[in-house]
């Protein structure tokens, strides 16, 4: 039986006079559906379709014949009982089914999407604000009843967010130190001012890059993980189960993550600053020939201690925002697993965006209070 449904030896005759006669031999199946439809369309009315020589017909063939009967009042002759029943079935299934979604065209669609986008943006920020409030209430409850403080959960998060990130953040910061040094040296060499490379490395990594790059790494590493973990728990109804038992998911899931991320961020940022200075120091020693002792002395002279405060004050705020956005997006997950991926992406995008906006705000603030 295999391979027999290939269209074998079909002949068609077009008899004129009282309209067209369509006679198929062999198979009337999906394999030659397009040809059959075209041939039937090219014949004139009144049309007669002769099925007496058809060996094999499937629902697509039946549909094409049925369509000709429905639209052009064609008459069918020579159908076997099976073919007749197939024709009846497709006739039965002929209901006005909508195939394509309604979509307004052009300008209206652009406005429509813009409107949806704007309202989603507004709702997200309102939701984030509400989530911040819920978290604050959770903190207040914990302070009232410190017994409910989940020390184990927090310590475990310290490990995941902080200790396990040391390797990648150290490597990244070291390389950033090298790159800043190298790029700075190339430019400053033109003025014979290579020594200022140290100013560049010291100030930029401590004041800005150490904290900012650490925040981006934590957002990508831990913010996304928070969203994915909480989102998956939402789908498997673990969070609903928690609520029905009487455990607050904010206290059990969100607060440990926020505390861990807020506490770990300044430590990681400080580690990142040290690694960047190390990378920059090794670069200037090997390439510019400035010995490490000179490097350290010069750093002490040119980098004000306020730079360190700026870097370290920003860090916990960034950590808080990253954890808040990650947990918030995780809690928004509903429905299917596809949503977890989308929300995780959103968590990372949102937290990096917020971190950079806040960084700009901090830059303006610290400049205006005279910490230049």
């Amino acid at each position: 039986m295999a391979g027999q449904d290939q269209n074998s030896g079909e002949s068609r005759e077009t008899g004129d006079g009282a309209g067209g006669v369509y006679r198929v031999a062999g198979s009337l199946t999906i394999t030659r559906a397009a040809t059959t439809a075209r041939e039937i369309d090219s014949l004139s009315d009144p049309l007669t379709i002769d099925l007496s020589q058809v060996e094999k017909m499937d629902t697509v063939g039946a549909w094409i014949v049925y369509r000709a009967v429905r639209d052009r009042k064609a008459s069918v002759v020579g159908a076997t009982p099976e073919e007749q029943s197939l024709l009846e079935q497709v006739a039965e299934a002929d209901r006005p089914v909508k195939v394509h979604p309604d979509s307004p065209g052009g300008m209206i669609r652009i406005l429509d999407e813009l409107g949806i986008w704007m309202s989603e943006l507004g709702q997200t920020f309102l939701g984030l604000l509400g989530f911040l409030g819920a978290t604050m209430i959770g903190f207040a409850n914990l302070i009232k009843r410190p017994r409910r403080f989940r020390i184990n959960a927090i310590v475990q998060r310290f490990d995941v967010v902080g200790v396990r990130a040391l390797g990648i953040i150290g490597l990244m910061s070291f390389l950033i130190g090298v790159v800043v040094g190298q790029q700075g040296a190339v430019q400053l060499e033109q003025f014979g001012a290579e020594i200022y490379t140290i100013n560049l490395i010291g100030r930029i990594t401590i004041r800005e890059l150490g904290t900012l790059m650490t925040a981006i790494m934590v957002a990508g590493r831990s913010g996304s993980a928070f969203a994915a973990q909480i989102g998956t728990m939402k789908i498997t109804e673990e969070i609903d189960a928690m609520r029905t038992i009487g455990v607050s998911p904010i206290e059990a899931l969100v607060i440990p993550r926020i505390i861990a991320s807020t506490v770990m961020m300044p430590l990681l940022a400080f580690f990142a600053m040290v690694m960047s200075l190390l990378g920059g120091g090794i670069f200037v020693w090997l390439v510019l020939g400035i010995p490490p002792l000179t490097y350290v002395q010069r750093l002490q002279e040119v980098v004000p201690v306020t730079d360190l405060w700026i870097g370290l004050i920003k860090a916990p705020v960034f950590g808080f925002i990253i954890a808040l956005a990650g947990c918030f997006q995780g809690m928004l997950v509903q429905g299917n697993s596809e949503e977890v991926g989308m929300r995780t992406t959103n968590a990372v995008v949102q937290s990096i965006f917020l971190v950079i906006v806040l960084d700009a705000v901090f830059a303006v603030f610290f400049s205006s209070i005279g910490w230049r």
Partner: protein
Amino acid sequence: MSEKKPIIAVRGLGNSFGEQVIHEDLDLVVCRGEILGVVGGSGTGKSVLMRSIIGLQIPDEGDIEVLGENMIDRSEDEAKNIRRRWGILFQNGALFSTLTVAENVEVPIKEYFPYLKPPLLDEIASYKIAMSGLEPEAGPKYPSELSGGMRKRAGLARALALDPELLFLDEPTAGLDPIGAAAFDELIRALHKKLELTVFLITHDLDTLYAICDRVAVIADKKVVAVGTIAELLSLDHPWIQEYFNGPRGRAAAGSVSKETVKA
């Protein structure tokens, strides 16, 4: 149904995952035009058997013949010829989530018959959707907007897209309410009769077995321990089969069927 021509023949099948042996020397024959139900306890490898037959799982040993062609070690091109002659409904529908229901139905048609033009394609998709018992509004919806039962019907519409000779159903009524499950059974029986399908059906649902299956294959102890009509199986004294059909749920399902036949 009187002609006993094998459409699927499995001989000496062996499957294992690491240490865990799933199948050992398993034989099974499915005849053309029948509805064969496959039952077995959880974890006995019903789905693995189906995956082996359709080529998603490469067995450790044994021969598998589907529609008269050997399925083991085939080239991708040869396999394609067979794939367009069967339709498969996965447990949760496995609809492509980024496509609408109608587009899902059109995927196999477009793959094998790329020259078919959109108006005809849309017409084919719409009568397949109607045949599967979905309401007309379902066409432009995305899988995430459908209920479990509708998703299964949409999956069935896609499985039927190429007018298959052979239909594989993996737990088609699991997760449906009893009314929805009965309606789905009825739909499969009607389509089987109208389209001359052979159906390979994995199920846990005793009502489905009684309602639509011509024969039932029981998987236990890593092989098919018995194949036959339910009456034939009941006369065997295999402990699992007895427990399965004569347990409280089995008797309830049998009772409801006999009541129906009395009424009719």
